[in-house]
């Protein structure tokens, strides 16, 4: 959210007055406000504009020795609600729990099952986090890649083998397939989160977590195959595929949750463009 001072900033501001680093409390406050506005369905462009205003004002106030709490009050949600109400948005929805998933899952369940909650609101909360869209997009992209891989990988590997590369041929083919598979899934995830915020952060974290999940799941799948004598029985195949895809899905969900808990990256403001 807030742009920490950088060497470029220092050059811009000269030697006499350099902006001090902003405290994490500012980032956290703006993140909570942004989440609340997202929950209240303020359009992303409007949210970005309001947040850039807040960022500049909080920055200036901080340099004057005024803390975010002194400026906004101790209840950022109330401030966010007041702004939204003045803009004509319905602010009767209860605020979300501070952490969505997975550590605060019981709290989230309790919140969603509250008496004031409504099915539409629950649907909106799930959609604002984007878990469903993310999994659907990743699943479709992954399935398309697998189908393509079934047609392409084996013939290409065989062709490279015949070219004289030997065992390196199929290995290179599989490595290329894994790279294409990961890239396509990540692009699909990024596109599926368009308009929900933190898409780029989700993808960067997924790019780390997905290979980690493969490091765990692939040996496990191989172990299952070895224990079963490399059986082609449907139960064994489902267990092997389920292990790989299940852990990959978990890694995507974890990446999304991780990204949602991070402060949003700076919005495109005049300050950020400098």
């Amino acid at each position, binding site marked *: 959210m807030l742009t920490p001072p950088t060497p470029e900033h220092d050059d811009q501001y*000269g030697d006499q*007055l350099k902006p001090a680093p902003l405290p994490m409390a500012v980032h956290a406050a703006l993140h909570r406000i942004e989440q609340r506005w997202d929950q209240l369905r303020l359009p992303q462009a409007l949210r970005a504009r309001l947040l850039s205003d807040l960022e*500049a*004002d909080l920055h*200036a*106030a901080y340099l004057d020795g005024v803390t975010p709490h002194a*400026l906004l009050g101790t209840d950022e949600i109330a401030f966010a609600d007041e702004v939204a109400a003045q*803009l004509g948005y319905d602010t009767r929805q209860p605020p979300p729990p501070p952490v969505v998933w997975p550590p605060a899952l019981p709290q989230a369940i309790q919140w969603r099952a509250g008496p004031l909650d409504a099915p539409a609101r629950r649907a909106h909360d799930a959609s604002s986090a984007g878990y469903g869209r993310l999994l659907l997009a990743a699943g479709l992209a992954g399935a398309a890649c697998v189908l393509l891989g079934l047609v392409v990988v084996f013939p290409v590997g065989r062709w490279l083998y015949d070219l004289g590369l030997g065992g390196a041929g199929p290995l290179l083919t599989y490595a290329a397939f894994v790279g294409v598979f990961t890239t396509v899934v990540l692009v699909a995830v990024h596109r599926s989160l368009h308009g929900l915020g933190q898409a780029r952060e989700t993808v960067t974290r997924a790019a780390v977590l997905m290979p980690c999940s493969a490091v765990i799941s692939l040996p496990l799948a191989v172990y299952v195959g070895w224990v079963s004598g490399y059986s082609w029985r449907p139960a064994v195949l489902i267990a092997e595929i389920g292990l790989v895809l299940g852990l990959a899905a978990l890694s995507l969900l974890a990446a999304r949750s991780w990204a949602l808990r991070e402060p949003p990256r700076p919005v495109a*403001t*005049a300050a950020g463009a400098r």
Partner: protein
Amino acid sequence: MRRMAISADDAERRQHFLRGTADLLLLATIARAPGHAYELATRLSDVGLGPFSYGTVYPLIARLRSAGLLSEAAHPSTRGPARKVYDLTAAGRSTLQRWSQQWQHLHQATSSYLESSTADPPGDRSHRDSADATTTGSPTC
């Protein structure tokens, strides 16, 4: 304790009054000189009508801007990110004029009514009440 309770009540009443005129006061403040949100809150507080926090002023700015009454311009700062400086649009100026007239009318009407209500001595008022009761035929004790 008694004095503190009355003072708190007065402050609450004052806040109640100000709440209805905060947007008018904000337009008037911007009409004197454009400014950014944090500065406008400070200037409004310095008027002496009561405390105006940023948390009160910024939502009003958001509404007035959304209504087309305020324009904004990014002013670069030597100390941090560029800040939005708000000014009145033509619609904002005419709205300020209209709301000011409404306020003047309301203020005059309210003042006249309050003066007439408090000007009558208690004796006269009880006499008038009993006379009204007699003319309307209400039972008297």
